[in-house]
């Protein structure tokens, strides 16, 4: 039953596989036709397919954000009509949440790295993995159809009765797109869970899993258990709009508040779908940058699971002013504050890992540092919002907008770029310019803060979200924010220039350009189609770096 049974041990050339010489060189060489990409079941190629697709959606969603920020330059709504503004921010939300953030790290880096990190040949269900990409693309096409057919103006939350009774536009089509994307999420999560359970290589015990794998595992649990609740909720909205089968319609005794409960039962855990993989990436980057074993491995791994579990019981904090029972609100407030504990565990352990480490200021680490700083600001303002009494004042203001952008853009997107810079040499076998990498990390950090810090002030001063006409005294802060968005947009474009340049002109990366531990670095860059020439056997703890002790010869 172990993996070693399969190759013939007498014959060293037998790896238990039928593979062509090209496949043995690299997964990128195994076929150059379009068909060899579109019908691939190789997790690494599917990861590249996802990388291309979500980058496309990132820029579509970014274009909508650009429209919003341009319109907010002046207090009058002079660029977009009221309806147009509603459609712009709805599109921005829908695309960024379901077509960029949720699939971003899991479906690209999770897909690429999970089998490599646990010493497997592929995910548990390779064909299902490809199917999930096609489902995702179908959902993406539906979203583009929404865009072309005039958009939707309900906000990404599709609140009833606005969405079910009053909204114009393509509500049903947009809900269908998200519904379909949900199946892609569920299949991916399912695939990851089974892979982690069944395909670990010999010696890869649960206590030796890389922290990125733990966070992807926790994320997958949420994907599998929360996404179907969103699916049924959106189906109920579609039934109400299409067939008049209202269950949220107050006219027949339905309750719009029930919609909010169902929606946030998915959508709050969804926040952790977006940020947990980022936390996993940062754990990897921090250990790699410090050249030290991660401090408190078990606690960092456990905190990912704790966040995933706690995340299911905090949804009510989105509804403090919606009219739910105040006792429910108090409990949700307490549970939301409790999420700070595992989050804090992570930040403290990263800091302790860095303590006395041999830190190299390479681009991945700069992105990780940016993440930690922004995550702390986003997390602490999250605590402020979790407090029932304070939230009543800043609910639905720019304070909330700034808070979740700190977590989801400052946090998750920084980690995404950190991962891209860290594993790029592994994925494509080429080094890129570290100078440009550092510069773009810096610019993204500065541009981000200039965009979103003023929004905390705006929200605290009372600027409500989703309004494009505002009192003139808010203009200075809005202009600052829009200027920051300009810098941020350009900074996001920068990596494309030097990363693409590196694809062709970069020097070969070598197997392990950063000199770090982890199974993915023990195979070639780019990896062969079947990941490893021989099935690896793990015989040590993760992050097994040499630690200098007092009294060491060379210390």
């Amino acid at each position: 039953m172990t993996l070693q049974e399969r190759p013939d041990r007498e014959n060293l050339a037998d790896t238990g596989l039928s593979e062509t010489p090209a496949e043995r060189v690299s997964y990128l060489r195994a076929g150059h036709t379009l068909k060899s990409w579109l019908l691939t079941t190789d997790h690494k190629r599917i990861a590249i397919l996802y990388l291309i697709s979500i980058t496309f959606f990132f820029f579509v969603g970014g274009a909508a954000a650009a429209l919003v920020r341009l319109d907010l330059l002046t207090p009058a709504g002079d660029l977009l009509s009221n309806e147009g503004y509603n459609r712009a921010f709805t599109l921005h939300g829908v695309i960024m949440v379901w077509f960029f953030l949720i699939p971003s790290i899991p479906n690209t880096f999770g897909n690429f790295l999970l089998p490599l990190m646990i010493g497997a040949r592929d995910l548990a269900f390779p064909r299902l993995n490809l199917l999930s990409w096609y489902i995702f693309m179908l959902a993406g096409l539906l979203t583009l159809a929404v865009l072309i057919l005039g958009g939707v103006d309900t906000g990404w939350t599709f609140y009833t009765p606005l969405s079910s009774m009053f909204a114009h536009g393509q509500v049903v089509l947009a809900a269908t797109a998200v519904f379909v994307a949900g199946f892609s999420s569920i299949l991916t999560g399912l695939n990851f869970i089974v892979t982690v359970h069944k395909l670990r290589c010999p010696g890869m015990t649960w206590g030796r899993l890389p922290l990125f794998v733990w966070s992807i595992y926790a994320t997958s649990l949420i994907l599998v258990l929360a996404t179907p609740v969103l699916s049924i909720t959106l189906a109920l909205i579609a039934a109400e709009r299409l067939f008049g089968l209202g269950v949220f319609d107050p006219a027949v005794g339905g309750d719009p508040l029930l919609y909010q409960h169902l929606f946030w039962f998915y959508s709050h855990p969804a926040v952790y779908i977006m940020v947990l993989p980022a936390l996993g990436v940062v754990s990897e980057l921090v250990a790699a940058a410090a050249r030290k074993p991660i401090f408190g491995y078990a606690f960092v791994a456990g905190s990912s699971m704790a966040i995933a579990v706690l995340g299911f019981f905090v949804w009510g904090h989105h509804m403090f002013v919606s009219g739910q029972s105040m006792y429910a609100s108090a409990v949700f407030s307490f549970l939301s504050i409790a999420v700070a504990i595992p989050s804090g565990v992570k930040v403290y352990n990263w800091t302790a890992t860095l303590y006395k480490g041999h830190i190299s200021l390479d681009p991945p680490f700069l992105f990780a540092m940016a993440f930690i700083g922004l995550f702390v600001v986003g997390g602490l303002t999250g605590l402020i919002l979790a407090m029932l009494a304070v939230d009543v004042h800043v609910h639905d203001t720019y304070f909330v907008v700034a808070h979740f952008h700190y977590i989801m853009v400052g946090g998750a997107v920084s980690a995404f770029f950190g991962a891209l810079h860290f594993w790029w040499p592994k994925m494509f076998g080429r080094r890129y310019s570290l100078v440009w990498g550092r510069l773009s990390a810096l610019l993204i950090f500065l541009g981000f803060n200039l965009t979103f810090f003023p929004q905390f002030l705006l929200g605290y001063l009372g600027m409500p979200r989703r309004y494009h006409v505002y009192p003139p005294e808010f203009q200075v802060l809005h202009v600052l924010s829009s200027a920051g968005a300009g810098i941020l947009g350009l900074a996001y474009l920068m990596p494309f220039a030097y990363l693409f340049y590196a694809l062709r002109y970069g020097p070969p990366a070598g197997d392990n350009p950063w000199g770090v531990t982890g199974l993915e670095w023990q195979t070639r860059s780019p990896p062969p189609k079947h990941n490893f020439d021989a099935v690896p056997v793990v015989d040590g703890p993760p992050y097994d770096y040499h630690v200098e002790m007092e009294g060491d010869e060379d210390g």
Partner: protein
Amino acid sequence: MADRVREPYAAPGQQREAAMMGMYIFLASETMLFSGLFLVALHLRLEHAPEVVAASRQMHYFIGAANTALLLTSSLLVALAVEAAREGRARPAVLATAILLGLGFLALKAVEYRMEYAEGILPLPGAVTEFSSPARHAFMNLYLIATALHAVHLSIGLGLLATLAVRLLRGTLPLPERSIVMVNAGLYWHLVDVIWIFLYPVFYLAR
């Protein structure tokens, strides 16, 4: 073909375990899908107890009971066919009987819908309906959505079982090596059954 081990697996046992685990996770996901509907039902019941009880009394619970019996029997037959497959025996006739019972469920459901339509309590688009209270309307809306969604799942299950029956007849499913396919289809069928076991009391017996 017989006990082919496909990438990325090393041994047939490992491949079987992974396939079964995948199915169980998928079923957990399906359970969460329906749990959303059950939550709506619970909410209606708590908010509008008298109306929901009155609406539930109007349901044809004998048809529901007959359908429960049909589904439970079909599940038993599927379980027998799966056990046989595990031991290497193909039982297409047993599977076919289970499919017939499933079709019987759909037929009875159609008859029931028709009766409710005639009574003016089935809120189909364009139907003339009359409800004694708004909450009763919401109850019937939910009933229609939940039972229709269940029927969709049941139809998918029938498709799965029919494909397997054909493969058993043609002998293109090597048994017992690939019996996992039967096991997984059986698991799906049992879930469709279990969902009905909950739908039935919630809509018919909640008095």
